């Protein structure tokens, strides 16, 4: 457990870092001077109550705020500030976001959804066939269902399509907004299993979760975000033992 002002991981270079990132919707402040860090291959989770600004944080990092939203502060990707770049540029650099609502192309097939995930790489001479094989290795179920329309899939399968689509852009940083939302416990465990295995491919994952217990179990590091501020941070295993976190987010039977 360390205090927020202490530099969390001095060892190693951070792949993604926000410095004093603020988000406003009109006059409403959703996020206040938030600074977080993410290292290569790490899984970092941000927990906190509804309305704490967690989704705003991810949208600001991706450059996908709604038209009335503005952000200030720095978003450093491998040391370069990308805060003024548009979303296509950030995707090209290696950021990818799976939003809370998945935002799939529901009337198109699973395979088309995945292929479109690689849209930004169309000019790089990269064959999406190889990418597809990689995704089907992670989610064998998607291979069976590849001709099915994405809108006809179950909640868990849709989440797999959404994660697969994001991975098709070959990201260095994958951001997941509430991946377990609305999923049955067994399916949720499967999704978390996949998330923990992404680490091996060198992808850093920034995770936002209501299900704090499961999130902290797979994570290396965690932040607690409350009403627009980071109030606690530390190793995930330490956070899971912290009495305040247990009381507010994990419940008694921790």
């Amino acid at each position, binding site marked *: 457990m360390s205090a927020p002002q202490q530099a969390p991981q001095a060892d190693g270079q951070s792949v993604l870092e926000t410095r004093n990132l603020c988000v406003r919707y009109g006059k409403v402040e959703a996020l206040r001077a938030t600074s977080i860090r993410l290292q290569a291959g790490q899984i970092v989770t941000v927990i906190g109550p509804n309305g704490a600004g967690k989704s705003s944080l991810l949208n600001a990092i991706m450059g996908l705020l709604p038209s009335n939203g503005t952000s200030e502060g720095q978003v450093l990707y491998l040391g370069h500030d990308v805060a*003024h770049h548009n*979303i296509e540029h950030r995707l*090209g650099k290696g950021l990818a976001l799976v939003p809370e609502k998945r935002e799939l192309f529901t009337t198109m097939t699973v395979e088309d959804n995945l292929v*479109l995930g690689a849209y930004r790489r169309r000019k790089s001479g990269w064959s999406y066939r190889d990418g597809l094989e990689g995704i089907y290795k992670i989610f064998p179920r998607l291979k069976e269902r590849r001709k099915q329309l994405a809108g006809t899939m179950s909640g868990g399968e849709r989440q797999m399509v959404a994660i697969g689509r994001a991975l098709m852009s070959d990201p260095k940083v994958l951001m997941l907004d509430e991946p377990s939302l609305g999923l049955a416990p067994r399916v949720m465990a499967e999704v978390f299993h996949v998330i923990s295995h992404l680490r091996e491919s060198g992808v850093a994952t920034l995770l936002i979760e209501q299900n704090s217990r499961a999130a902290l179990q797979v994570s290396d590091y965690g932040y607690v975000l409350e009403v627009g501020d980071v109030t606690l941070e530390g190793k995930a295993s330490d956070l899971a033992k912290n009495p305040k976190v247990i009381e507010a987010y994990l419940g008694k039977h921790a």
Partner: protein
Amino acid sequence: MDMGVFAVLAQDGITNGAVYALLAMALVLVFSVTRVIFLPQGEFIGYGALTVAALQSGQYPRLVSLLMAVGALTFCVELGTALYNKRYKPVPKLHLMWSAIENLAYPALIWVLARSIGWQDMPMAAQIAFALAMTIPLGIMIYRVAFQPMAEASVLVLLIVAVGVHFAMLGLGLFIFGPEGSTTRSFTEWSTEIGAMLVSGQSLVVIAVSLVMIGALYVFFDRSLYGKALRATAVNRKGAQLVGIGTSQAGRMAFGLAAGLGSLAGVLIAPLNTVGYDTGFVVALKGFVAAIVGGLASYPLAAAGAALVGLLESYSSFWASAYKEVIVFTLIIPVLAWRSLTSGHGDEE
């Protein structure tokens, strides 16, 4: 009505329906990708037909001048946006260079081609291709200037802008083409008799071109990555942004395709009808009725609607020719009633 008249009317209706199908496809495409109701469609009909007519009579196609002017305007808009956009800082030099090529150099190239080649002696296919080479970029430029800056606006605001663009293009059409209508050469003089019915080669060409375009569009949307990207944008705009399909890029593609289909429709009707600068609007409205049958969303239903509109128009011109427009446009009412009863309510996303 004997069988002969019946067959002639059917042939007429299907020929017109094929043209309406092209227009309906374009309307569905533009609406589903950008949520713009593409009212200026009718002007592209006139622009396309009149430009081919001008080329055939050996006149300088004055649409080239308009293309150069709108191109210059578009470049100014791009430059202004690049300099004043505070949100994304680095001035996109490469982007501006491409914009200069598209909006300044390309129209200049078209001008050189228009001046240096004797277009009246060229085959008709080349004349049509040259006309499309003007109208398609014009559609893209109009998207950039009028619609892209307010891509996030509501459907109603976009409709009002579309009305404005429609009137602007109508006025410009009168200015550059004059009030006189023209016809073009026919595609073919060939015709044949099947039983008692005279089948004109003209009708067959129109139907064939329309079918080929519909087939090509189907392959484009179903197979190519760009076609899938357009469909994806229509299904889920935010999802499209997440994978890097720029909303504006999809909008440009949709408007370019729609402008091309609109002017092609104009070229197809021009040998049989006198097309003036303002003829297109009513024709495009019939395409709109067909698109409404498909709920502005379904391509096959829009094509079926186009055949229905064409046949209805043809038969009503026989029985009640004074009321044929009334009958066609009244079709909207039962269609809308049926759609609002059967489909779930999708007011504004």
